[in-house]
């Protein structure tokens, strides 16, 4: 499958992560290969509100048709103290190649911590967002194979959400879905969060109707939308399932919610 270990090592030979391991009698020209990326599936999503941001991701990790584990978090607290990440105010979600996601989280976490030690104040989300873009672009020719979403509160206390491509192109948005089921979730979010294709009845003649204006949704509604989006994705995408991890960033800190998803 899409595994790194594509070539099975012949009879008890060492398990190199190369397509062809050395055989007993080298004959003629042989081509070796190594593919450094694996797609670990899964999906993430983020929505920002008036005074909060929500990031969510399923906890299934796959390679090909196999499930590696049913609990591999894709959400990470950034810039907190200790193993519990105490006092963190920024959350990073990564989906794609899990090993790169982990490495990226580790780098960003260190940078945000160093910033606090050197400047004596926590890093703003806007600054963190731009720094993340630079980290990703720094590996422009051997990218971190991940789609990242960064969430927190901006300097006015409003929910802030930034989404990225694997090489650092980024944008602040109201909502974004990423990963395997992004194509399923994103149009649903367009409709339910940004009220796309919704018009106010009787607000004009014929096609000159007025668009329903998007407004920040209350937290309870957003949580329900996130759950609906994921239960829908689980129904139709095999790489999504097992568990749903949500992190809600408010002025009081980061609240973490976990709930079960279907395991089939």
């Amino acid at each position, binding site marked *: 499958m899409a595994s790194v270990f594509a070539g099975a090592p012949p009879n008890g030979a060492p398990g190199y992560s190369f397509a062809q391991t050395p055989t007993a009698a080298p004959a003629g020209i042989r081509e070796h290969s190594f593919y450094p990326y694996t797609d670990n599936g899964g999906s993430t999503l983020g929505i920002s509100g008036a005074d909060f941001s929500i990031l969510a991701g399923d906890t299934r990790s796959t390679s090909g048709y196999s499930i590696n584990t049913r609990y591999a978090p894709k959400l990470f607290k950034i810039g907190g103290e200790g193993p519990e990440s105490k006092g963190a105010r920024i959350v990073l979600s990564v989906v794609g190649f899990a090993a790169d996601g982990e490495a990226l989280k580790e780098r960003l976490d260190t940078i945000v911590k160093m910033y606090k030690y050197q400047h004596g104040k926590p890093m703003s989300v806007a600054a963190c967002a731009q720094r993340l873009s630079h980290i990703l672009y720094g590996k422009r020719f051997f990218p971190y194979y991940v789609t990242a979403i960064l969430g927190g509160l901006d300097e006015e206390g409003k929910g802030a959400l930034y989404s990225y491509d694997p090489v650092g192109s980024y944008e602040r948005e109201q909502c974004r879905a990423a990963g395997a*089921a992004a*194509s*399923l*979730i*994103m*149009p*649903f979010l*367009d*409709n*339910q969060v940004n009220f*796309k*294709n*919704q018009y106010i009845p009787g607000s004009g003649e014929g*096609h000159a109707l007025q668009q329903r204006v998007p407004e920040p949704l209350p937290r309870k509604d957003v949580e329900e939308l996130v759950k*609906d*989006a994921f239960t*829908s*994705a689980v*129904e*139709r995408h095999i790489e999504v399932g097992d568990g749903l991890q949500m992190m809600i960033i408010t002025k009081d800190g980061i609240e973490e919610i976990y709930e079960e998803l279907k395991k089939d």
Partner: protein
Amino acid sequence: MGSPFSINGGACVAMVGKDCVAIACDLRLGMQALTVSNNFPKIFPYGDVYLGLTGLATDVSTVSDLFRYKVNMYRLREERPISPQTMANLVSSTLYERRFGPYFVSPVVAGINHTTGKPFICGFDSIGCIDFAKDFIVSGTASDQLFGTCEGLWEPDLAPEDLFETVSQALLNAVDRDALSGWGAHVYIIEKDKVTKRLLKGRQD
């Protein structure tokens, strides 16, 4: 060149409601990224049975004409209109006849059975394998997006007007996230003794 299924683009969706069914399609016809026409419907009525066809446009035209012929011949021989279930089996066997050189289409059938009065929808792959669904069927280049919107918006026993809103929102929002589909839509709401056809404008890009 890509898959024959995604050269021209297009999307189609069918849904079941309470004593009614809906079928809807977009209107785009393209040649890869270039839009050639914004008035290319993909739903074809055969009496009270409706057939949606997405995929390679030349096959959409060929297959729709072929079924017009076949359904007409059926009605003349049997002296009764074709039921959606019979239509489904006709589509399936016709596609399987071309097992090793298929028509590049993903058909959708929708209608209400006249004897039982029950709503019926189903979908097919290009060689005739039938997908009997109790809720909704999607097809075309926006099928991933349609799966997402339908799974999120659909609920059981929708009344005709609510079903219209649901199917329209599901289609419109799905095609807006697909570069190969869109440019307006046709929506049919089929009830026991009434069919309503509506033309939706949608985004013109």
